[in-house]
């Protein structure tokens, strides 16, 4: 949900910075979609883990979420610093 909100805020940049912002919006939406689609799987894995009293850490999904936020922030910095404002 926070990713969707971030994508919605990125939309505000679209008239100012042009099509490049579309990659930010698309990236945030894709990350939100991936998180939402795998939510059920993660929930069942957590339930099984609690039931068996042991649960391997979700290192891949954790790293993917952190990486997507880092990439979005990098693209945001690039947009502010290097993309000229369009009239």
């Amino acid at each position, binding site marked *: 949900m926070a990713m969707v909100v971030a994508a919605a805020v990125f939309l505000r940049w679209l008239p100012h910075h042009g099509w490049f912002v579309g990659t930010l919006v698309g990236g945030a939406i894709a990350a939100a979609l991936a998180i939402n689609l795998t939510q059920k799987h993660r929930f069942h894995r957590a339930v099984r883990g609690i039931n068996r009293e042991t*649960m391997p850490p979700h*290192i891949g999904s954790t790293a993917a979420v952190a990486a997507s936020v880092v990439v979005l922030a990098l693209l945001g910095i690039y947009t502010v610093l290097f993309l000229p404002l369009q009239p």
Partner: protein
Amino acid sequence: MPENSNTGAKDARGRLASRLLRGGTEPDPRFTLANERTFLAWIRTSLALLAGGVAVEAFMAGLLGPELRKTIAVLLLVLALVIGGGSFFRWLNVERAMRSNTPLPLPLIAPVLAIGGALVAAIMVVFVIARPA
């Protein structure tokens, strides 16, 4: 009963997890889940900073000069970057500490967030005071 009764779970771990989280024993799953929730809270903070940076750049065009606007936006976006990346390493270090039954590490991203937030707030306070009426 031996301390580590979860040897089967060790095999269930992926290659990446086995490589990054070597040794130790599987902690209580509730602690692992609590660590994940804390990680997600940091990620939400990072996304809020990201949205804040975008908002400053997009909505304050009439209020702030272009240089000041750019500085605050970049500061917020860098803060989002550091918090987003740092939250993963915090999660990993806490997971390692729980596996090896050692004290939890101090979150280094907490003072970074505090100092960064205070810096942005200070810039805004100076701007509001110095701005001609």
